[in-house]
């Protein structure tokens, strides 16, 4: 079964700092999909990004960037110039090709202080 580890339970930064959230995954499947979701204080789960296992190209979307490295089984998420509105719990998740579920890591609570 797949497994997702987010070793950082909580991170606190000051506004405008860059911050990287780590995600390490385990899977025996050669085809899999990685995701990041944001859970703001209001509680909903907001999709941020999907990455396929056969596409290791890094992605940038505004202040957000993702670094996918199969060699280290990592899919890290960096927020550049953090803002107070980035304060949330961020979850990394994994779906394997032949399993019809998505498994989440334990989440990292990010607090951005003004």
């Amino acid at each position: 079964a797949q497994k997702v580890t987010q070793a950082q339970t909580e991170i606190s930064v000051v506004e405008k700092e860059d911050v990287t959230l780590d995600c390490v995954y385990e899977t025996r499947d050669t085809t899999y999909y990685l995701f990041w979701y944001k859970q703001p204080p209001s509680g909903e789960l907001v999709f941020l990004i999907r990455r396929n296992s056969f596409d290791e190209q890094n992605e940038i979307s505004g202040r957000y960037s993702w670094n996918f490295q199969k060699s280290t089984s990592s899919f890290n998420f960096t927020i550049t110039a953090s803002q107070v509105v980035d304060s949330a719990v961020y979850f990394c998740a994994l779906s394997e090709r032949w399993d019809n579920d998505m498994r989440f890591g334990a989440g990292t609570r990010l607090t951005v202080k003004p």
Partner: protein
Amino acid sequence: EPEVTQTPSHQVTQMGQEVILRCVPISNHLYFYWYRQILGQKVEFLVSFYNNEISEKSEIFDDQFSVERPDGSNFTLKIRSTKLEDSAMYFCASRALVGMNTGELFFGEGSRLTVL
């Protein structure tokens, strides 16, 4: 923008009572899910549903739980006899058929269940 809707947003019940949580997935989606999140903890997979039957379920989804798609639009989660430890936020999600298990899940806003 289409969204997953869940009702009720909050339900308080007595231990041993039956609870039904309702979800309306996005209309052209084919895969449906329930997840739960105990306060402050991780989001845990409960069950997935496709083609009118359960396709995967976790060890949490025991005989006390059941799911149903009664009318082609609603997707329900029933807890037969609630326990204190069932208190959690329950999220419904749906996914379009985009290749094989490739698409992201779209989540509802959750139903908070409090068991007293």
